[in-house]
C-alpha cells in the first residue's frame, strides 16, 4: 500500500492506480472527464492536471516541478507528493472550463443530464460565470446513433469515454471520433448503429448530456428522482443497480458499482428490464375459484384456506403437496414458503421453479459476462432446498409427476417478467386439483388455478439474491406494492402465522442460524460523487 501526499495530507492507496483515482477515493473533488477507472487512460481533457514534487536537476532538491502533470496518467508510488490546491492547477481548471463552455449550447433546461452533469458541477465549482466568446457557437444537431441512444454533439466534451467503452469493453467499436480540431465529433459508421448488449452504459459514462437514453428522454428531471440500491433480476449474475424512481414509478435503472460482479456496467437487459413492473395487466387482487370462475377474495381469507388445503393428508399418495419455488423469489421468501409447505405437510415436495435461459453465456474482452440464465436467485433457492432436504424434485421431474396426478395441491410461484407458462407446464399443472398460482401476470394457469394470488415485482420487495457465483447481495424496496397487493414476503410470513411486518433482514438472520451461507451479505461500497 503506497502512501502518497495529496495537498499535504498523507493518503494510503492501492498500488497501481493513478494519482487521480487515489485522490478521488480519498474524497477529493478533482475535476475530470476523460478518466474512467474501467477504461484506458487518454489524458485528453486536461482538467485533472496537478503539480508534483520532483528532483530539481540543478540543485538535487525535491521541489515542485514548474509544469503540470495529468494526475490520471501518473501512477502512485510511495512518497509521491502532489497538490491540487495550488494556483496554477486552479487556473488551469478555470481556463479549461471556460474552453469547454465556449461552444456548449447551455441548454441545461432541456438537457436530461442536468443535475448530474459534470459540466454543471465543475463549472459551479471552478468555472467562469460568463463566456467571453461573442461569436456564434458551433451548432450541431442531434444524431440518432442507435436504437437506445441519441447523440447531442454540441453538448459533447469529447472525453472519448464512449468510444473507449465500445473499443475496450464491448469490443464492438461502433463509435469513433471523426473530424479534426474543433470539428471533432463522435459518430457511428453509416448503417452501423450503436447496437450491442451493453450499449446503455455509454449514457452513464457520458459525463455531460451528449449521449442520452431514448427511453428516459424528457421523462423526468434527475433531481426529482430517488434512488434505491437494488440487484437486477435480469440474469443470474446479480448485477447491482440503482433504481431511480419517484411517485410515478420507476424511471430508469443505472449501474451500481460492484467490484465483485459488474463493476461499472450493466447489461441492457438489466437496464431496460423493468418495464414489466408497470405493465397494465398486472394481477391486482387475490381470487378464489368458485364454480368455474375466479371470484375476488380478501387477503385475510387466504391463509386459513391454504392451511386447510395443504394440511389435509391424502390416503393414497404419500406426499401429495408441492411448493414450486421460483428462482425469481428472494432467498427469504423462498425460505418462508418452503417452511410453510413443510410445516403443514412434512413430506411436501419442494421444487425449484422454471429456470429461464436464453442462448449461451456471453463474455466480453475485458471479462464482462452476460449470463444465459435469466433469473436472479436459482442458486439461492437451490441452497435452501439442499439444506431443508426431504423430498425435492427438479421442475421437469415435478411436471412428470404432476401429469401422473400425484399431487393434490401445489403452490406455484412465478414472478417472471415474461410469459413462462408454456403448454407442457400448463397441461401438467392442470392435473393438480388445488393449484395456488402466485404470479405477476395472467397466464394459462388462470383457467386451472384454484387460488390466484397477485405477486409483487422485485422493485416492490426487499430481500437478497444469491448470484450464480454464490454471492449473497441484498436489495432495497423502491416502490410500494400495487394497491391491493401484498408483498410476497409479507404474505408468506402471514401464511406461517408470524405476526407483524415482514423484514427481510430479520428473516435472513433466522436463516443464518441454520444456514451459515446466509450469515454474510455483500454490499458494494457506494462510490463518492464523480468518483469515476
Amino acid at each position, binding site marked *: 500500500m503506497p502512501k502518497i501526499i495529496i495537498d499535504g495530507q498523507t493518503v494510503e492507496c492501492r498500488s497501481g492506480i493513478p494519482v487521480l483515482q487515489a485522490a478521488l477515493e480519498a474524497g477529493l473533488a478533482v475535476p475530470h472527464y476523460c478518466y474512467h477507472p474501467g477504461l484506458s*487512460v*487518454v*489524458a*485528453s*481533457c*486536461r*482538467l485533472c*492536471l496537478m503539480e508534483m514534487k520532483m528532483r530539481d536537476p540543478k540543485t538535487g532538491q525535491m521541489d515542485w516541478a*514548474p*509544469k*503540470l*502533470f*495529468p494526475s490520471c*496518467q501518473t501512477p502512485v508510488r510511495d512518497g509521491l507528493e502532489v497538490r491540487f490546491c495550488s494556483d*496554477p492547477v486552479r*487556473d*488551469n481548471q478555470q*481556463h*479549461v472550463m*471556460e*474552453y*469547454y463552455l*465556449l*461552444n456548449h449550447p447551455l441548454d441545461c433546461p432541456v438537457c436530461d443530464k442536468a443535475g448530474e452533469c459534470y459540466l454543471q458541477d465543475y463549472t459551479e465549482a471552478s468555472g467562469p460565470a*460568463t*463566456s*467571453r*466568446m*461573442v*461569436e*456564434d*457557437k*458551433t451548432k450541431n444537431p442531434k444524431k440518432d446513433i442507435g436504437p437506445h441512444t441519441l447523440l447531442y454533439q454540441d453538448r459533447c*466534451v*469529447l472525453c472519448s469515454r464512449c468510444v473507449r467503452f465500445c473499443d475496450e469493453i464491448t469490443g464492438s467499436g461502433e463509435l469513433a*471520433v471523426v*473530424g*479534426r*480540431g*474543433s*470539428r*471533432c465529433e463522435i459518430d457511428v459508421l453509416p448503417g452501423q448503429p450503436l447496437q450491442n448488449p451493453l450499449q446503455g452504459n455509454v449514457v452513464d459514462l457520458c459525463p455531460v448530456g451528449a449521449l442520452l437514453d431514448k427511453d428516459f428522454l424528457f421523462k423526468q428531471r434527475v433531481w426529482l428522482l430517488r434512488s434505491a440500491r437494488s440487484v437486477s433480476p435480469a440474469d443470474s449474475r446479480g448485477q447491482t443497480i440503482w433504481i431511480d424512481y419517484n411517485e410515478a414509478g420507476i424511471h430508469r435503472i443505472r449501474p451500481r458499482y460492484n467490484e465483485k460482479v459488474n463493476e461499472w456496467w450493466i447489461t441492457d437487459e438489466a437496464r431496460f428490464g423493468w418495464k414489466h413492473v408497470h405493465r397494465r395487466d398486472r394481477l391486482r387482487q387475490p381470487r378464489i375459484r368458485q364454480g368455474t370462475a375466479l371470484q375476488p377474495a380478501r387477503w385475510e381469507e387466504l391463509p386459513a384456506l391454504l392451511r386447510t388445503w395443504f394440511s389435509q393428508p391424502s390416503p393414497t399418495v404419500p406426499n401429495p403437496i408441492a411448493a414450486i419455488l421460483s428462482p425469481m423469489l428472494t432467498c427469504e421468501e423462498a425460505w418462508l414458503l418452503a417452511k410453510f409447505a413443510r410445516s403443514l405437510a412434512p413430506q411436501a415436495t419442494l421444487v425449484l421453479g422454471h429456470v429461464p435461459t436464453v442462448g449461451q453465456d456471453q463474455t466480453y474482452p475485458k471479462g464482462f459476462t452476460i449470463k444465459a440464465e435469466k433469473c436472479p436467485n436459482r442458486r439461492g433457492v437451490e441452497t435452501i432446498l439442499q439444506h431443508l432436504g426431504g423430498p425435492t424434485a427438479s421442475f421437469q421431474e415435478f411436471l412428470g409427476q404432476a401429469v401422473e396426478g400425484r399431487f393434490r395441491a401445489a403452490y406455484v410461484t412465478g414472478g417472471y417478467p415474461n410469459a413462462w407458462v408454456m403448454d407442457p407446464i400448463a397441461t401438467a399443472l392442470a392435473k393438480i386439483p388445488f393449484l395456488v398460482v402466485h404470479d405477476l401476470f395472467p397466464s394459462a394457469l388462470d383457467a386451472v388455478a384454484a387460488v390466484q394470488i397477485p405477486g409483487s415485482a422485485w422493485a416492490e420487495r426487499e430481500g437478497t439474491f444469491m448470484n450464480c457465483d454464490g454471492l449473497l447481495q441484498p436489495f432495497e424496496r423502491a416502490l410500494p406494492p400495487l394497491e391491493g397487493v401484498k408483498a410476497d414476503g409479507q404474505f408468506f410470513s402471514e401464511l406461517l402465522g408470524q405476526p407483524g411486518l415482514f423484514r427481510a433482514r430479520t428473516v435472513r438472520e433466522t436463516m443464518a442460524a441454520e444456514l451459515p451461507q446466509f450469515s454474510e451479505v455483500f454490499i458494494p461500497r457506494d462510490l463518492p460523487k464523480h468518483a469515476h
Partner: protein
Amino acid sequence: MPFERVLMRHVGVPNSTSLAVYKADDGYAGAARALKMTPDDLVEFVKKANLRGRGGAGFPAGVKWTFLPKDRTVTYLCVNADESEPPTFCNRVLIDSDPHMLLEGVLIAAYATRTTVAYIYMRGEFCAQFHILQRALDEAYAAGYFGRNILGSGYSLECYIHRGAGAYVCGEETGLIESLEGKRGWPRIKPPFPAIEGLFRKPTVVNNVETLACLPHILTRGVDWWLSIGTANSKGPKMYCISGPVNRPGCYEAPLGLSCRELIYGADFGGGMCDGKKVKAVFPGGLSMGALRGDMFPKPPDGKVDPRQDHDELDCILDFDDVRKYDLLGLGTAAAVVIPEDADLRDTLLNVTRFYSQESCGQCTQCREGTAWMQKIAERIRAGAGRPVDLDIIVEATRNMGMMPGLSICGLPDGAAWPIRTLIQKFRREFEQRIAAQAPGAAESLIRRTNAAAYELPVLHGRAVQPVGGTYATPVDVAPPP
C-alpha cells in the same frame, strides 16, 4: 575557410538522385565507416559531434539514442519526413536533390540504434519526393545498402516509406507513431516516451530528415570538421528557408548562426526585399516559433540587444540559443517568412490562427477549443469588427493554451500560442489602430447580428479587460496603416 555546402551540394546537379552520382561524391562511405564501428562507439561518436536535432526542438540526436533501454530486443527507427510547418521546405529540397544522403543517414542511425526496421514517414503531399525516395531506396536495396547483411557486416535493415494522409500533427513524434500504426494521428501521452514505448509499443527513435542527412558528413569528414562550423552550442550546417516578398526566396545552406537580417538581405540568401519595401515582421523559424519585428529603429550603435527597447529584431542570430532572447520558442525549422510593411497584420493573424485551428488534432481541450476561438476572433477582427478587448482575450487564450508546460499532450498548442501571442504583443499598436479605424459600432452590430445573446454580456460594454502580460508600448507613433 570558406563555407562548403554539404547538405545542398547536389542541388542543381543533373541526375543527382541516382546512386551513381551520389557514390561519386563519397557516397555511402560514411555508412561503410560506421558499420565498422560498434553501435555504442557510433553513438558516442555522434554524441561527441553534438548533432542537435534539426526538427525544431534541437535535442542532441546522440543523447536521444542513449535513452533507449539497454535490454531491448526490437527497436524501430522512424524518420520524420512529415515536413508540414508552413514556410518550411528544406527536407523537400534535400530529398529532391539527394535522397541517398537521407538513406545513408537512415542506415547509420539504424545501425547506431541497432534497429532492424526503419520507417520513413513521409508527408502525404510529397508525391514526387516519394517516388524519388522510393526509387533511391530500391537502388540502395539493389546495391546492398539495405536488406540482409549490409556490406558484409552481418547487419540487416529493412526500410519502408510510409506516406501520411496530410496532418500537421503527425509531424509530432507520437502522432507520427500512432499514424504509422494505422490509428488516428493523435499524439500520445508521455511518459512513456517513444524511446521506451513507441511504435507498436516497442522502443523507437524518431529523427528528422535533416538530422539524419548530417550523419554521413560527420562520419566522412570527422567531428572536428563538424565542430568547426556554427556557433558555440549550435554546430554544423543548417538549411535555411526564406519566403515572402524577398528577391530570392528559397532554401539556402549556411553554418548555424546566420542572422535574420543576413538571411533577408544577404546577397547569397534572400537578396533584399522586393521593390525596396521595408520588413514589418519575420517569422524566423516556421510559424510556430513566433515573430520578430522588423519595422522599427535599427539596432543601436553599441550593439547591445535588449528586446524591451525599440529597435528592430532582425539581428537575431538563428541558432538554437539566441532566438530565445527575442521571445521566440526556439529555432524551429529555421524557415523564415517575411511580412512586408504594406501587409495587413490582421490577415497574418487570421492566417496563423486558421492554420492551427485547422490542424489541431482535437484531443486536448485547450488546443481544440482555444485555436478555434482564436480563429473566430481573428476572423471578426479581419472583418473590421474587432474590439480592443479581443487582443487581450487572444493573448490570454494563448497563455491558457500552452504557455505553461504540461498543459497539453503535445506541443502543438505551444506552437500555436507563440506566434499568435508574439504577433499581438509585438504589434499591438498596429492592431489597435486598425480597430480604431473601423466604422464606429461595427463590432457591436456584427456581434449583435451573429450572437444576440452574447451581446448582452458585460464585456461588450466598453469595459476593457486588464491587459494580461505587458505589451510592447511604442513611444513613437507609427504611421497609421493606410
